């Protein structure tokens, strides 16, 4: 893989921060955008802007076509059976809330929902709200010291009461890649549906929803080189058809009288109101960018970065890693003895290096480790070993300043 050629597609990587070249290691929070995506969004507003699904004029037709083509691109990439199984949402959070509300309407008291101990708050709170609303019970798959789910315990949590299992494919705080195939298979064996939080996956590994067999797959565009404010909920047609709509408004209706409304078909039933048209089209382009890559090469490169960074960081005295799963992506969470993450993050920033500090919206994980937060470096395909060298050098400069 030609990293130089890839880097040249990301204009922001040329930026300087406090006079230093940007080293962007906060890809878990959001990824940077290739020129093709930026250009596509720009072109849409410059030449094609119109509302979709509701005009006979040329621009509206063209915008509709572009938006629906993006849906088709995403469907093909993810291997979904139908394009109307791809619902546009605002992002992972919105996708999960949609399921928690609409699928949640089908649940009763005594039904159970299973999540895991390593979920992002987005995949915890909507289920807690559902359980409040419906009187269902929330069960939690525990996590071991290395940051791996205890799947033998999971097996014992499943029963005919289980209606939904919602787990993350890859942990944003620890990088753990979960064995979702096992989770899905076992859930289906008791008749439960499965939602996979894919916010941290598609940018690192090739995902095929039919191979996985999951019932729902949620993700955000901004984490896979696309625009912010757009994401996807993949759902199996049969289940989406059983679910009541999430929000009411334009586009999601077939017929409205003041007495009664009939709902539109998929995907429109779940896409009320004027959507993020530019975002959807830009997300299509982000998937074209992914299509231009060999994801095995991407993963190999990122694993090299992960191994190299782990090796180099291990040389720092008093370093403690969080998340040492056998299977993990290019995320390193760590603390250094006597150093506060806020201080480290602030000084790294002054040296042009962007990392994330804090609890990463996963407070239960931090609670389990008994820490308030970590320093997290998360790599993407455009990162390099040279950048890791800069990062290590910066840390080595910072540590003596911060230590007594």
């Amino acid at each position, binding site marked *: 893989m030609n990293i130089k050629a890839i880097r040249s597609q990301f204009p922001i990587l040329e930026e300087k921060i406090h006079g230093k070249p940007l080293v962007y290691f906060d890809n878990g929070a959001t990824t940077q955008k290739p020129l093709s995506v930026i250009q596509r969004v720009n072109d849409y507003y410059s030449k094609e802007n119109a509302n979709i699904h509701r005009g006979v004029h040329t621009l509206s037709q063209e915008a509709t076509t572009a938006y629906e083509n993006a849906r088709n691109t995403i469907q093909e990439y993810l291997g979904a059976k139908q394009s109307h199984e791809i619902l546009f949402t605002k992002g992972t959070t919105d996708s999960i809330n949609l399921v928690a509300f609409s699928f949640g309407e089908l649940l009763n008291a005594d039904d159970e929902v299973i999540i895991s101990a390593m979920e992002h708050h987005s995949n915890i709170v909507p289920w807690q709200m559902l359980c409040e609303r419906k009187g269902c019970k929330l069960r939690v798959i525990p996590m071991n010291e290395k940051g791996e789910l205890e799947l033998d315990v999971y097996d014992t949590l499943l029963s005919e009461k289980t209606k939904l299992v919602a787990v993350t494919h890859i942990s944003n705080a620890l990088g753990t890649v979960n064995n979702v195939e096992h989770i899905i298979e076992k859930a289906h064996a008791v008749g439960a549906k499965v939602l996979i939080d894919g916010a941290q996956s598609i940018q690192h590994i090739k995902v095929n929803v039919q191979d996985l067999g999951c019932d729902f797959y949620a993700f955000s565009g901004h984490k896979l080189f696309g625009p912010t404010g757009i994401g996807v909920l993949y759902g199996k047609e049969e289940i989406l058809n059983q679910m009541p709509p999430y929000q009411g408004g334009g586009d999601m209706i077939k017929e409205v009288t003041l007495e009664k409304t009939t709902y539109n078909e998929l995907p429109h039933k779940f896409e009320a109101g004027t959507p993020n048209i530019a975002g959807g089209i830009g997300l299509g382009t982000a998937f074209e960018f992914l299509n231009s890559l060999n994801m095995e090469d991407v993963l190999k490169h990122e694993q090299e970065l992960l191994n190299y960074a782990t090796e180099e960081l291990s040389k720092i005295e008093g370093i403690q890693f969080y998340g040492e799963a056998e299977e993990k992506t290019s995320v390193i969470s760590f603390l250094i003895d006597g150093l*506060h*993450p*806020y*201080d480290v993050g602030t*000084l790294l920033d002054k*040296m042009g290096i962007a990392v994330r*500090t*804090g609890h990463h919206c996963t407070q239960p994980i931090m609670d389990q480790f008994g820490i308030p*937060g970590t320093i997290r470096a998360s790599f993407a395909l455009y990162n390099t070993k040279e950048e890791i060298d800069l990062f290590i050098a910066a840390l080595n400069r910072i540590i003596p*300043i911060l230590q007594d």
Partner: protein
Amino acid sequence: MSIKEKEQEIIDEFAIYEDWMDKYEYIIELGKELPLIEEQYKTEDRLIKGCQSQVWLNAECIDNKMNFTADSDAIITKGIIALLIRVVNDESPEDVARSEFKFIKEIGLQEHLSPTRSNGLVSMVKDMKLNALKAVK
């Protein structure tokens, strides 16, 4: 010295630092020197929880002069607290309640007083002023 004069003094001190790291090294030194809040005051009601760092603040008013002591788990936060306290300690509650800490912006540390930073400092400044207001006779 008035609050204004103390602020100017700090601005002058920082003027010699051109490099970010030098500036921060100085802040960190200040943080290390900050007279600590007494352990007995490190209670839940004096704790200001930010997402990124947390702050303890104790406020007293003796002879119409404010006296603050504070601590934080992050050393840079502590250094900035040291600057804020240096400016307002020994001043009248009226003056403290009115102070705007504009010098922080002048020395290039405004980002630490941004609400989105979530380091406890914004709430701490608010608490300082509230305590001063309460002490105004």
